[in-house]
């Protein structure tokens, strides 16, 4: 679908006769416009895919695919003149995953763009479930390019140094990533994401967003499942028509006057049966667009969870502070307002000495001081997070509305193309039948 990988011209928007690939271009170009930084200065392509074999971490032979990333600086002054050849390097899928994990950890307030699926899911035809299938590899190439463009057009992510070196630094990139120490944070992040905890006062907007993310995930999954079944059935319908071709051909052999008409009609039936392959190939593109947003829901959910985590930590800190303050008060005034084991034991076994009490109060006071700092920090952290995350969520929302609307339009365009093909084939067949 991304046939024109060499040039990234800014297409004219407002064109009403768009093909699906032109619409793709539109999405890309919108990325460029909306305040992106890196993408304005640099062209990025995932141009090719190749099979490699090598030894893996446990010294076993494995086959994997690598993807060629081409980059070229955009220089407005040299428009029209021969562009310089692009820089390029090869990356495999696992390196993309590494990059993404780094981004997830480092920018927890960003809805990080997803990678194309690791394994083919929601397949309509048994064949394309294979990871080595050339069609799957091709679609993955497109998906990886899309990922890079999304990151490169993101107002925050595009400025990341690790991302930049992913695109430009052939050797030693992995080491650089690990040096950031993100791995440790990654583990704790995963733990936190999966932990269950109750937040008393989450920001309503985030709670709604999380709920929306769940709904979107559910409905897109359902849509993808239905679509796969529909595609399967459509395939069957078209292919059976091929039998008409065969029988017409055989029949034409025993007819004199009807022979020619039958024979040529048969050819059109064969063409009709064959046309479904292209049709479903194009539809796969639509499914990929839906899948991107299916995976986006996970990233959205992660941001909402992160907010909950922040809020939870804040609430815990505040709660802790409150209880410490209360304890101090009790000790200072000698009254036991809250039930505590200490209180009970002191009642039963007698009060502490004044010196003991003094010591306790002093400890508490320093703890309270720390606690107040903690709460202040957590509060600031949480506010900061909410602010930044909500900006990105809004950005994401706008992007999603735009992209999905374009996707629906491109689906309609595909259907129109399919109908036109159908009209042509059957009109031709009708002419042939008239000659029977």
């Amino acid at each position, binding site marked *: 679908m991304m046939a024109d990988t060499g040039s990234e011209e800014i297409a004219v928007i407002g064109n009403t006769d768009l093909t699906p690939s032109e619409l793709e271009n539109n999405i890309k170009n919108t990325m460029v416009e909306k305040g992106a930084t890196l993408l304005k200065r640099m062209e990025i392509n995932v141009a090719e895919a190749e099979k490699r074999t090598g030894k893996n971490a446990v010294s076993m032979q494995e086959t994997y695919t690598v993807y060629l990333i081409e980059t070229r600086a955009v220089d407005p002054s040299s428009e029209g003149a021969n562009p310089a050849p692009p820089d390029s390097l090869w990356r495999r899928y696992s390196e993309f995953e590494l990059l993404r994990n780094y981004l997830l950890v480092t920018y927890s307030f960003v809805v990080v763009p997803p990678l194309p699926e690791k394994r083919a899911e929601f397949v309509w035809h048994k064949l394309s479930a294979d990871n080595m299938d050339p069609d799957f590899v091709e679609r993955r190439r497109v998906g990886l390019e899309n990922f890079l463009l999304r990151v490169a057009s993101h107002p925050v992510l595009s400025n990341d140094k690790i991302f930049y070196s992913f695109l430009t630094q052939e050797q030693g990139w992995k080491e650089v990533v690990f040096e950031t120490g993100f791995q440790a944070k990654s583990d704790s992040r995963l733990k936190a994401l999966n932990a269950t905890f109750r937040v008393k006062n989450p920001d309503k907007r985030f709670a709604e967003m999380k709920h929306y993310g769940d709904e979107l995930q559910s409905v897109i999954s359902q849509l993808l499942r239905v679509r796969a079944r*529909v595609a399967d059935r459509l395939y069957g*319908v078209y292919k059976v028509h091929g039998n008409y071709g065969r029988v017409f051909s*055989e029949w034409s052999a025993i007819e004199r006057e009807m022979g020619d008409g039958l024979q040529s009609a048969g050819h059109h039936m064969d063409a009709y049966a064959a046309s479904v392959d292209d049709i479903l190939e194009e539809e796969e593109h639509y499914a990929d667009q839906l899948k991107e947003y299916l995976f986006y829901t996970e990233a959205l959910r992660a941001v909402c969870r992160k907010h909950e985590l922040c809020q939870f930590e804040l609430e815990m800190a505040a709660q802790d502070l409150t209880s410490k303050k209360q304890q101090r008060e009790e000790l200072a005034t000698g009254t036991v307002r809250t039930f505590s084991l200490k209180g009970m034991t002191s009642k039963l076994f007698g009060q502490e000495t004044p010196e003991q009490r003094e010591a306790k109060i002093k400890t508490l006071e320093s703890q309270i001081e720390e606690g107040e700092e903690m709460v202040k920090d957590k509060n600031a952290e949480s506010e900061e997070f909410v602010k930044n995350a909500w900006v990105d969520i809004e950005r994401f929302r706008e992007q999603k509305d735009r992209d999905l*609307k374009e996707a629906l339009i491109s689906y309609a*365009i595909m259907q129109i193309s399919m109908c036109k093909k159908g*009209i042509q084939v*059957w009109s031709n067949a009708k002419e042939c*039948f008239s000659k029977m």
Partner: protein
Amino acid sequence: MMSGTVVDSGSPTAAVPDELSGQILDEDEDFEVFCKDSTFTDGGSLNASMQTSPGSMVNQYKFEEEEEQPDTKDIFVTVDNPESHVTAIETFITYRVLTKTTRSEFDSSEYEVRRRYQDFFWLKSKLEEAHPTLIVHPLPEKFVMKGMVERFNNDFIETRKRALHKFLNRIAEHPILSCSEDFKIFLTAQAWELASHKKQGPGLLSRMGDTVRAVAASVRGVRNRPEEFNDIQDYVESFSQKMTSLDKITQRIIREKKEYLEELRECGPTYTLWSGSEEELVEPLKQMAGCLDRCCRETEEQVQQLGNNLLPILHEYVLCTETLKAVLRRRDNIQAEFEAKNEALATKRTDTEADPKVLSLAWESLVGKDPEEAKQQKHQKLKGEIKEMKEEIDKLEDKLEFANNTLKGDWGRWKKSMRADLRAAFINTAEKNVEHYEKCLAVWESFLLSQRTEANEGDDGDRDDS
């Protein structure tokens, strides 16, 4: 009107009416001869009263040559209005049969009767009995085996009704069959009249005799089938296979489309569900759902069309091949009978040559007859027998020639109408498919239009033309 031959329309239509109408008259004279002898002509349904003037014969001939001009059609039959009848023993359906005609053989110009499937079946048997080598259009099947719903569901009745309509119309269009007395009675008689007429006709014994002869003939087999009938036989074999395949393929397409439709039906509701979670996207999603629902309805219609138009015709032609095979068999039997009698004659002749020697002379002397006289008597007897046989064989030869000619003629006619029928059916299917796609195209184009007008209205500020 009774024309002895039906023009073979496989040959180029360069005929000059004047020349040929003369020919027809001659053959009609021959035909008269056949009419008088009932043993081998077409049963009892042809009689002298059916002959019409030469003028209208020429009309019929013209009817043959020029493709069924409506102005020469003088009998119109419709089958409609199925009604269910429940009795103590059975439930059955009757159909109304309406006839409008200007033919003089009919007392009135309009008739309305009710008939059930049995009656149609009776008519077909009578016609085949009377015209063993004419091709009678098939009836819809008696039972439907293929795991369909019970006999009397609406689709089944509708399909059967149409097939019965076609059956009668084909007969009405046929120059020979339409003049059949049984056909006339079928169209005009009241229920009790028809019942009493059915009881007439050759008695059981005579019919049994016919059957025995037919079986004997088919066992004997045909020695020298003319090449053209071999060709027809081969064609019918292949054609039968093709029609059966096409029938099966079409059934499969209908099945696959229905399954596709089932899945497609879930798409619209999923988009509607989705629209419930969205704000900006509510409209496009709802419209998407609407489009998919409309496409579903179009597909439903398309499937129905296929089942109502193409499938029944393919099925009819599958049944036709059975008819054709039967006709060829009957022709073969006639030829076999003729060949057998010929052989018998040859045997008798050799008998005659041989001297009636020892045994019979001995017998003669025992009885006390003069040997010379006895010899003469025997000779005369044999000559008499041979003369009789020769007469019979001549009749059989004529019968065979007649059978061959009618078959050839009707074969040409059949091929023509087969071609027309199937061509029309396939054209119709292609047209319906084009229509289907055109309607779906309109649905999606309207979707695009609505999205773009929204876009143009809303986003004018955002668009950047560079």
